[in-house]
């Protein structure tokens, strides 16, 4: 069974009104379990919209989406996925541990079970001493790690991430990418990741989905055959640079304008 199947999806905003926007057109995508897939494209290409469609935070205008073999809405109600956003979005009035326990509270878990799981997750993201701290006492990178811990707390098979490292500085970002790979390797979670950054996409994914500017279409799929075990050396590998070039050219080819907008080359 595929982790996610997107079939013939189209998304239009403000249909029929003067400010109608065709965000996504003819999207067909199949994601197999355990893979790490990145959506990349220029600003406004609809990659975040596609992610939110999969998350059932909005409905497609036409077409269908199945997650974990169910309709997207059912998957959301069953909590089959966890989500992380660019802003960590932790609740200021809750301790780190209680922030991680939020999805578990909503599922009705009792306190002992919740506490055991949040401790486990804090170990996973390497922040064991911080369970009693308040979010505003933590740095941006640490908050993002707590957000990831929260997203994975209920051990969902799927993780959706919308530019979670976008607000971090370069060094923290690379560190977080390595951490994320380690965490996902140990949990076996399927990940769909949205980003602006080509090196980030290539470093993290088994497959990069390249999208065109609005109206967003999938123009190319780039396989990244590094396998699950990646390290700092991977960033220096010749194949790494080759893949970056491949993705960049795919992006350029996808655009009709000579200048690349919204793509980072870092």
């Amino acid at each position, binding site marked *: 069974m595929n982790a996610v199947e997107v079939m013939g999806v189209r998304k239009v905003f403000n249909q029929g009104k003067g400010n109608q926007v065709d965000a996504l057109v003819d999207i067909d995508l199949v994601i197999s379990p355990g893979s790490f897939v990145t959506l990349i494209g220029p600003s406004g290409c609809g990659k975040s919209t596609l992610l939110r469609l999969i998350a059932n935070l909005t409905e497609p205008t036409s077409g269908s989406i199945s997650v974990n073999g169910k309709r997207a809405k059912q998957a959301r109600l069953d909590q089959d996925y966890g989500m992380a956003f660019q802003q960590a*979005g932790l*609740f200021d009035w809750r301790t780190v541990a209680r922030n991680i326990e939020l999805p578990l509270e*909503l599922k009705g878990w009792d306190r002992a079970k919740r506490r055991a799981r949040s401790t486990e997750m804090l170990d996973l993201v390497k922040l064991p001493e*911080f369970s009693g701290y*308040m979010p505003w006492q933590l740095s941006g990178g640490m908050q993002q790690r707590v957000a990831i811990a929260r997203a994975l707390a209920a051990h969902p098979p799927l993780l959706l991430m919308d530019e979670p490292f976008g607000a971090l500085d370069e060094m923290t970002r690379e560190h977080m990418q390595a951490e994320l790979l380690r965490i996902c390797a140990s949990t076996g979670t399927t990940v769909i990741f949205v980003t602006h950054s080509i090196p980030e996409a290539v470093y993290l994914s088994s497959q990069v989905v390249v999208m065109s500017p609005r109206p967003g279409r999938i123009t190319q799929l780039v396989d990244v055959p590094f396998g699950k075990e990646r390290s700092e050396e991977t960033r220096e590998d010749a194949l790494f640079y080759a893949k970056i070039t491949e993705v960049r050219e795919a992006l350029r080819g996808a655009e009709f304008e000579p200048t690349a907008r919204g793509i980072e080359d870092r």
Partner: protein
Amino acid sequence: MTATTKNLKEVVAAAPVQRYWLVRRARRAAMFVLSVVIIAAGWELYKSVGPQDGGSVLGWKILPRAKDRVMPHVSDIVSRFGDPIGRSSDESVLSVVLKAVFYSLRLVLAGFAIGLVAGVLLAVVMTRFKIAARAVLPYLVISQTIPLIALAPLVVSWGGKLKVGGLVWERWMSASLLGAFLTFFPIAVGTLRGLQSPPASSIELMDSLAAPWRSTLFKLRFPSALPYMIPALKLGAAGAVIGVVVSEISTGLRGGIGRLVIEFGRLTTSDPAIVYTAVIGAAVLGLTMAALVSLVDVLLMRNRPREVLA
């Protein structure tokens, strides 16, 4: 370098923050006492240089009378507290004033509680049903500009004449009701703003967690609303005090501090200092409510980062 050592270096120390806020509040209280002392000094200064029977500045009769009968010495006022009330009983003025303050305080607390519950309930309804918000919000906003206190004499006149079911409407209920009325509006507005304050991303987070509306209300909206509710609570508390005191005054609601101010005011010819004791009592009433709200503020917000919101 291990991951853990790297983390600890990134953390902002939190412990000094709590101590700093305590020191600030103590300093503020000290400054308040100092300003009271300065006012007392200014009072005495005016007494020594001011015109005994009032005076005029540029033809306007705006200088108050400085004689002892009208402006007693500060020491006289203070000592008056300890002396018996005279005439009918030996009870000290302090005791009489405190009893009146306590009487009014109970009315204020009753009114405040009712206004608080009603205001919060309305805010929740208005958050749930956007159409209710659109219909009612303009009235809530306008209510803070029109003098609702004008209704005081009307509501108070219900006393003793109205029967609700088997219960006779007492005058004190009017006072509490008016207090509740003046509490209700600022609390409804403030709570509504607070409940609507969480960023869209947090609402989306709750959606992604398949949280029902009730869970989002209690786990997200109410905690987010607290920083907005605290200033509203302060306004509500002040409103409750004003509502009760004005109601007491526009009737003869015996036992309350408002009534005491009027009664003592009538005694000024024979007993100049006593009216000031009642005024101080009314001030104590207001300050007690303000202190209660401050206490709630400190207790509920102690874990939050201090932003400049209130």
